[in-house]
C-alpha cells in the first residue's frame, strides 16, 4: 500500500456536460485509478466518461488568502451581465 498514490476523479454525467469533480481515491497508476474510479464512482450509472489526475498535480489557491483573493469581487455587481436588455430570441444566457 505504501506505493499507492492519491488521484482526483472527474465524471461526465452525460454527453455534452462538463466533467465534474466527484472525489478522490487511491491507485498505483493512472490505469488502475481509472478502473477504481469506474468501480467506486459509477456504480449507479453516474457517468459516461472519467478523468483522473494525480492529486499532486493540482495547484490550489491558499486558503489563508481566501479573503484577499475573493472578497473584492463581492461588491462589484456590475460585473454580472444583467444591466442590458436581451433579445427575446436569446433563451439561455
Amino acid at each position, binding site marked *: 500500500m505504501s506505493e*499507492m498514490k492519491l488521484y482526483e476523479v472527474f465524471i461526465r454525467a452525460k454527453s455534452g456536460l462538463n466533467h465534474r469533480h466527484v472525489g478522490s481515491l487511491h491507485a*498505483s497508476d493512472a*490505469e488502475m485509478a481509472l478502473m477504481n474510479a469506474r468501480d467506486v464512482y459509477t*456504480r449507479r450509472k453516474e457517468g459516461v466518461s472519467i478523468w483522473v489526475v494525480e492529486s499532486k498535480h493540482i495547484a490550489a489557491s491558499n486558503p489563508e488568502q481566501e479573503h484577499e483573493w475573493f472578497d473584492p469581487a463581492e461588491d462589484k455587481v456590475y460585473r454580472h451581465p444583467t444591466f442590458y436588455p436581451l433579445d427575446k430570441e436569446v433563451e439561455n444566457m
Partner: protein
Amino acid sequence: MEQALYQYALRLADSSLTMGQRLAEWCGHGPYLEEDVALTNVSLDLIGHAQMFYQIAVDLSGETKTADDLAFLRDAHEFRNPLLTELPRGDFAYTTLKQYFVDVFNLHLYQALSQSNHQPLAQAGKKALMEVKYHLTRSQAWCERLSMSTAEAKQRMQQALDDLWFYTPELFETDEVMRQLADDGVIADYASLKNNWQKQVEALLKKCQLELPASGWVATGGLQGEHSEHLGYMLAEMQFLQRAYPGCEW
C-alpha cells in the same frame, strides 16, 4: 434435448453463482477500499448472470420452480459447476488468477453463446459478454501487476498457478449431448473454446514469466455432481436463510 439444455443452463448458472459467492466473501476483506468495492461489483455481475441462466433453466423445465429455488434449495450433488469455481477464495493472487482463467473462458463462451439460435441463450450471452469484457480487463491488469512487481507477489502468483492449473481442463469437458447441441448451433463449440482459451492464457502467462506446472492430478467430477468438500460448506452458508426460514423475503 430440452433436458440436455436444462442441464447446460444449470452448468452456466452454477458456475457463475459459485464464482460470485466466492468473490462476495471478499466483501470487507479486500486489500484496500477501492478494490473491495470492485471485487463485489464483479460478484454482483456474476450473480446476475447466474440469475439469467437459472431463469432459462426454469423456463425449460416446465416446472413451477423459481430461479431462487434452483440457487438456494439444491444440494451439492445437484450442482453442475466445475470444481474450479467452488474452490475457496485463497489469497488475493489466487482469487485474481482464478478470476482471470474464468474471465477468459467466459469471454469466448459468451461470444459464442450470443450467436446461439436459442434466443434466450443468445440474449443472456450478449448481456453477460458486455460485463465480462470489463472483468477480464481488470483481472488481466492485476495478473500483470502482481507478476511483475515484488518477489513476494510473483511467488504468490506462481503458487496460485501451480495450485489452479489442473482445475482448468474441466472447464472444457463435454459429452455426447453437448456435442450434439453444439452441432445444432445451440451452445458453444467447446473444442474451439479450449483452443482460444489456451492461446490467450498461455500468452499472458509467458508475458508474466510464470511457469506452467509440469504435471499433476487433473480435476473432474463437477459436471456429474461429484464435488470437492468446499462446495458443501459454501452452500451451507449461502443457503442457510432459505433453509432455516423457507420462503423468507426481504
